[in-house]
C-alpha cells in the first residue's frame, strides 16, 4: 500500500492536516486539495467511502464536520485503507482524549507527530495503536524534561542579568 498524501479537511474544505508522501509542487497541491475537497464533500453519507480520482483512489471517512482522507494506489485494498484512516483517528482520540476539531486547529503539530509514528514513506509503520501511543508519550516526556531543564537554567542565569 502506498499513501500518496493524507488530508484532513473540514466541511468548508479548510485544511486541518496535510501530509504529502509523493512529490507535488505547491500549485499542484493547491489544486489537489480543491479537487479532492470538492469530490468528497459533494458526496452524501450513504455513498461509499471510495472515490476514483486521477489514477488513484481516495479513501475517506467523515467524522462530524471533519473529513479524513488518504490517496492510495488503485491496486490497494480500499477496505483496509479505510481501516487505516480510522486507525489514525482512533489514536488521535486516545492521544488528545476525546479529540475535537479545535485540538487539530491549535495542536496540529502534535497530530503530525502521531502521524509520523503511523506512516513513513506512505507505508504503514505500526499496526498496534497502543505501541504508537507509548512511543509518542515517551517522546513527550523527553520534551517536557528538556523544557524544565531549560527553564531551570534560565532561572539560574536570570540574576546575572
Amino acid at each position, binding site marked *: 500500500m502506498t499513501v500518496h498524501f493524507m488530508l484532513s479537511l473540514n466541511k*468548508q474544505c479548510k485544511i486541518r492536516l496535510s501530509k504529502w508522501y509523493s512529490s507535488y*509542487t*505547491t500549485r499542484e497541491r493547491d489544486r489537489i486539495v*480543491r479537487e479532492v475537497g*470538492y469530490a468528497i*464533500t*459533494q458526496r452524501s453519507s450513504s455513498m461509499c467511502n471510495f472515490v476514483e480520482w486521477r489514477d488513484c483512489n481516495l479513501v475517506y471517512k467523515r467524522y462530524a464536520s471533519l473529513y479524513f482522507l488518504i490517496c492510495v494506489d488503485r491496486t490497494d485494498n480500499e477496505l483496509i485503507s479505510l481501516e487505516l484512516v480510522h486507525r489514525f483517528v482512533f489514536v488521535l482520540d486516545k492521544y488528545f482524549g476525546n479529540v475535537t476539531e479545535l485540538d487539530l486547529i491549535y495542536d496540529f503539530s502534535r497530530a503530525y507527530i502521531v502521524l509520523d509514528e503511523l506512516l513513513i514513506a506512505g507505508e504503514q509503520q505500526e499496526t498496534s495503536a497502543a505501541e504508537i501511543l507509548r512511543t509518542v508519550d515517551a517522546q513527550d516526556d523527553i520534551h517536557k524534561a528538556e523544557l524544565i531543564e531549560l527553564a531551570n537554567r534560565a532561572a539560574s542565569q536570570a540574576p546575572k542579568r
Partner: protein
Amino acid sequence: MSLSALFILDSKARVLISRNYRGDVAMNCATRFATRLLEEEESALKPIVHEDGVTYVFIKHSNLYFLAISDRNINVSVTLLFLYRLVECLTHYFEEVCEESVRDNFVVIYELLDEMMDYGYPQVTDPKILQNYITQESHKMEDAAKAAPQILKTVTGAVSWRPEGIKYRKNEVFLDVIESVNLLVSSAGQVLRSEIVGSIKMKCQLSGMPELRLGLNDKVQLDRSAAGQAQKDAAASSANPANPTGTATGTARKMIEMEDVNFHQCVKLTRFESNHAISFVPPDGEFELMSYRLTTHVRPLIWIEAIIDKHEHSRAEYLVKAKSQFKAQSTANNVQIIIPVPPDSHSPRFRCNVGSAKYAPEQDAMIWTIKQFPGGKEILMRAHFDLPSIESEERSEKKKPIQVKFEIPYFTVSGVQVRYLKIIEKSGYQAMPWVRYITNSGDYQIRT
C-alpha cells in the same frame, strides 16, 4: 428574455441560497459550475460561461459567488447589473455581505429576491425603496394592510425613487463635485492614458416634491445659454452667490467640454437633449446625480520617477522621486506612493526628506506617506531591502506598477463649476445649496 435562476454560493461554490424564477433549467447545474471553477484557475474563468446548453453568469463579492443561469439568449448586461444591484441591496441591509450574513438572513434574502425580480425580470432594485416594505422585523397583517397603499405608492409611483410627504425643518442641499484622475504611465515615463472621471454627488434634505435644476459651465450648456435661453435662469438662480465653501478654480467664463455624461434615472433626459438643462426630482438623501468623463490632456498632478536596483538573492535598492505638478497655492493631502517590493523581502531601511515610509507586507509594497504635499515641489526617498537566499518555487514577478493616492481639496482639475442650482417646490420654501470641490487620484499607475 430573462434569466432562469439565481444562486448565492459560498467560496467553494456550494449553494447557500437559490431562487428558481422560471423552472426551465435544472437547478443541479450549480454543481457543474462548481466543477468548472475547479477545473479552470479562477482567474482564467470568464464571468460568462456556456456549457451544455446552459449559460452561467457570475460575479464575485467578498467570498461569495452570485450566479445567474439561463438556457436562452438573455440580455447579459441586465443580468450582470442586476447581480451588482443585488449585492448593493444586501449590503444596504446587512452591511457586510459574506457567508455568515447570508446564512443568518436567508428569510429576508428570499423576500428581497422575490421583490427584486419576477420571472427573471428585474423589478424594484432600489434599496431605499425596498426597505420601506421589506424589513428584518416581522410585520402584522393589520399594520401592513393600513400601510400598504402608502408603501406601494412609493414603490410604483410616477417618481419611483422618491416617496411623498418628506419633511425637513431646514431645507438644504449639499453638492460634492469630485474628480478622479486616472493615469497610466509607461515604464519609459510616457503618459499612455490620462482621463478625468467626475461625479456630482448630492445629499438632499428637502421637503415635498421639489424640482431642481443644475447649471454647469459645460460648453454646450453655455453655448445654449449664450443663445439666450438659459440667461434668465442664471439671473433667477439662487445658487451663484451662495457658495460658501466652494472656490472652484478658473473663471466663471471658463468652459469645459465633457466627453460623456451619464445621469441618474431621476434626470429628465428629454430636457437635457432639448436644451441641455439638467432638471430632476431628486431622491431623498445621498445619491450620485451624474458622472462625466473628460480626456483633455492635463499634466499629471503628481509625477513619479523610480530607479530600482535589484540583486537576486541579496538585496533591492530603490530611489524614488516625486514631483507635484500643480499650482503652488494648492496642496495635495494624504499622499501615498505605493511602490511594489518582492513579496519575500525583509529588513527594510528607508531614508526620505519629506514624509515617512514604511514596509507594508500585506500589499507586498512600501508606502511612502506625505501628509501635505504643496504644488511645485520635488521630494526624494531611498529604500533598501534584503532578499532571502532561497527562492520561491514559483516565481511570478507580476510587474506591479507604482500607485499614487492623493486628494486635492478646493480644486477640480477640469475646471468644472456649478453655476447655479435652482430649487422649486410648490410650497415655495427657500433652500440653501452648499458646493464642495475635490480632486483625487483614481486609477493612478506608473509602470516599473
